Each structure stands twice: as C-alpha cells, then as structure tokens.
C-alpha cells in the first residue's frame, strides 16, 4: 500500500514537474517542421545583439541585487539570530510578513514613493533639501530597490536558519584569545555561515535573473531584462518559438546555479544536526 502511494506520487510528480525541463520538445511536437526552424531561432538569438545584451544585463542586475541583499540582510539575520529567543520569533515574523503580502502591491508601493510627485520627493522638498523633484522612478536605481526589497526575506531566512545553529561560544573563545570582534567575525562567523550565505544568495540570484514584474513596473523602457524580453516576444510579438528559445537558453544558464544550490542544501541538512 505505501509503495502504491509512492508510485502514484512519482507519477503525479512527473506529470506536474517535468514541463519546466523540456518546453522545447513541446514546441517541436506541435510543429512538424520544427527542428530546422529551431536552430534558426537560436542563430537569430545569437546574431541579434539585443538578446545577448539582455542576458548580460540580467546577470549583472541579479548579481548586484544579490550583493546588496547580502550587505543589508546579513547584519539583519545576524542580529535576529543573536536576539533574545522570545524576541527572535517576533522579528522573524516581521521579516516574513511582507513576503505574504502581494509582490505586485509592494512594487506598487515603491511607485508611490519614488514618483516625481511621490512621497520621497515631497518630503525632501518640504524639508528644503532639494528644490527640483529627483527622477527616481523608471531608472535602474528604482529597479534595484525593487528587486532588493522583494527578495530580501528570501536571503534572510536561510541565513538566519544557518546562523541560529551556530555555537556562539566559539566567538567568545576567539575574543578570549585576543581576537578583535571584527577579526572574530571574519575568521569564524563568516566561514561557518558560508552555506547559509550561498543558499540565500541563490534564492535571490536565480529568480532575479528571470524577473519580469519589477523591471516592467519600476525599470522604465531601458531596463533590458531577459524575463521582459521573453514576455514581450511572447505576448507582444506572438513569437512563441523565439520566446521558447530564450527560455531554453535562460534555463541552460541557470541550471548550474540550481545544481549548486541543491548541493549546498544537501550539505546544510547533512551537517546541520
């Protein structure tokens, strides 16, 4: 009986989860003269600099956003992990809460803040700091803010889970032995939280590469992200094959990172308890 369940699960799983791996095959099956046209699509992607540019830009944006998340999120995760246990859960809840409210609405909140006559400009102008409204919306700056804002909880949670298990006596020992706090952090906390950092960064980096909503709403027309290119090819140009080719390339690009994430996760659970 239990094996029957497992068998059933494995089937339902294959049914449900396999599509992300072979969208191209679906398309090939749909179109009988597919394979040759197929290569043309890829050739097209490589000859048109727009696509390569979009790929490169997505990687850059995702990398920088991950870095910024890390700079902001590491001290937060560290602080939460070192807080009193009763306070810890409250702080953690506060980190998770924005994640449960709609992403779209949170991005929308930034539009209200960053607009030319938005909250930030109004406050700064009434304080007399600036006299002309700053242009912040529809710039790369707005896009970075949006991505960092949306993905910050994804970085804090795994990092916190990792730091929580840490033995803080190690730090005290280091200080007793004459380490300065920064040195102790650099030599002990940082290496020990390596898996948490990697897992959190992957959780930010991988989805950020393919992000569509945030660049579309905050980034303005110049924000060339591959998720947006795919969306436009699909919905605006109705070029399904090209969109599929873009998706495949994106997938090929991201699979190594996903596998890396898997192995980090495996190590974390193995060494965790």
């Amino acid at each position, binding site marked *: 009986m239990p094996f029957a369940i497992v068998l059933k699960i494995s089937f339902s*799983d294959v049914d449900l989860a396999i599509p992300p791996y072979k*969208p191209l095959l679906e398309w090939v099956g749909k179109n009988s003269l597919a394979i040759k046209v197929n290569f043309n699509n890829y050739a097209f992607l490589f000859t048109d600099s727009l696509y390569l540019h979009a790929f490169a830009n997505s990687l850059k944006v995702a990398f920088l956003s991950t870095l910024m998340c890390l700079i902001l999120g590491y001290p937060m995760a560290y602080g939460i992990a070192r807080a009193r246990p009763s306070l810890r859960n409250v702080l953690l809840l506060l980190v998770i809460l*924005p994640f449960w409210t709609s992403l779209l609405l949170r991005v929308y909140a930034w539009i209200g803040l960053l607009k030319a006559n938005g909250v930030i400009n109004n406050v700064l102008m009434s304080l007399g700091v600036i006299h002309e409204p700053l242009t912040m919306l529809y710039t790369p700056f707005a896009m970075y803010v949006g991505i960092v804002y949306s993905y910050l909880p994804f970085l804090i949670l795994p990092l916190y889970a990792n730091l929580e298990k840490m033995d803080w006596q190690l730090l005290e020992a280091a200080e007793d032995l004459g380490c300065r706090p920064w040195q102790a952090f650099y030599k002990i906390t940082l290496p020990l939280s390596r898996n948490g950092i990697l897992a959190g960064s992957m959780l930010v980096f991988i989805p950020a590469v*393919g992000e*569509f909503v945030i660049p579309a709403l905050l980034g303005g027309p110049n924000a060339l992200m591959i998720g947006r290119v795919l969306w436009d090819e699909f919905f605006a140009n109705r070029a399904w094959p090209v969109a599929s080719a873009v998706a495949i390339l994106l997938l090929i690009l991201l699979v190594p990172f996903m596998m890396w994430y898997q192995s980090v996760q495996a190590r974390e659970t193995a060494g965790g308890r």
Partner: protein
Amino acid sequence: MNYRSSYFILTCIGIGFAFLYIPILSMVVFSFNASKLVTVWDSAHSPTLKWYYSLLNNEEILDAAWISLKVAVINASGSVILGTLAGFGLARFSQFRGRFTLNAMTTAPLVMPEVITGLSLLLLFVALEQLIGWPAGRGITTMTIAHMTFSMAYVTVIVNSRLATFDTALEEAAMDLGARPVKVFFVITLPIIFPAILSGWLLAFTLSWDDLVISSFTSGPGSSTLPMVVFSKVRLGVSPEINVLATITLGVVTAMIIGVSLWMARRARLEAA
C-alpha cells in the same frame, strides 16, 4: 550565551525593517487620502473612506478577486494533498529509485524563474489540447493546474522537513497494536503533521492569490485574476483604489498570520504540558 548586540547590528536591523515597512505603511496611510493624486495628501478632506467605497463598487476588481479566490482555494487544497503525499514519500522511503530525481524535481520550481515555468506550462497545455483535446481552451482550469505545479513544491518541502523530526516510534506502536498502515496515517501521522499542512495550505493559497506571471501565461479570455487586473492598472499609473486593496490585503494577511502563530504557540504549549 549572552544576547548583547552592538549598536552597529541594531542600526542595521533598524534600517532593514524601515526599508521593509515604510513602503507598506505609506500605502496604508495614503489609502485614506481624499485626493485623486495618490501621493499628495489632501488635508482638508482626509482621512476618508471614499476609495474603500469605490473599490467595493468596482465590478472589474471584484470579479477578478472572485476568480482569484476560486483558483487559490482549489490550488491550495490540491497542492496540499499532492504535496503531503510527495513529502511523505520523500521523507519515509529513502531507498527508492528516482528519489534523487523526485527531490530535484520538487525543489526546482522553487527557484525557477516564473517566465520559464509559465511559458513551458502553456506550451504543454497547448500540446495536450492538440493531442487529446484536453484541456479545451485556457482558463481557470489551466491556471489552477499551473499554480499547483509550483505550490505543491513548497508544500512538499514544508511537510518533508516536518517529517524529518517525526518520531516514527509512534507509528510503530500503533502498528504493533494492530492498526493498518492507512489507519496509522490518518489517525497518528496526519494529526501530528497538521500544523505543517496548514502552513502549506496558507502558503499555497498566498502564492496563487499573488501570482501574476504564470497566470498571465496560462489564463484565457475572461479569466483575469486580481493580480492581472492590478498589473494593467498599475501600468497605466497609480490609482487610489490600489492603495485600498493593498491595505485590505495587508490587514487580512496580518490577522491570519498572527492568528495562526498564536494557535500554533498554544498547541505547542499543550503538547509540552
């Protein structure tokens, strides 16, 4: 172990939480603003509930919310069933063939960029329709199935990690006393992992309620979900009604999360006693 934190850490936590919450709070405040210019505070007529009335009379948004609710409830219930089975299989039967594949397949959707998942699911639906004539056209059904593919992954992870700390002696005792495996599952296992299943349900509901990208790919004419309507409205510019919607969402989510965590804390106390 001591809980002292340096001023540096406290400052970082402060900045981090300000960053997470200022946008949300600004939306709440401006939802009571009378002016149609969303971010310019009209002190003569505010606070007012006028946009709340206007939202509750907006047919387009209400229809979309109804569709979103239907999809989210069906999705959450379906993914809880499938996800619990998969999580159970992963946690309990460590030596079946394809375990690694199943593991990888359940976690892949967690980090997969949504544009890829959405596009490939749509192509799968199209191919299926041509092969076996089902699903005929796209709409609520396809959207729900699509949502289940990624929500299920989250449920699986939650249930799996809960089962990792499960004391199997309880099940063995029940079986020694003559209970059949199915009965053991429903009488012993299910009640104990119920909190994990509940969090899974809530998470699956939220993910589906919030999803824009995958819904856009897999929905058909006449089945626009709430995020799709909000997205098209936000693209055209800000609207006070969206602030109201955000405030209501935030209120419901906060109440739900606080309720569930209080309930779980109480349950944990009862179990300990």
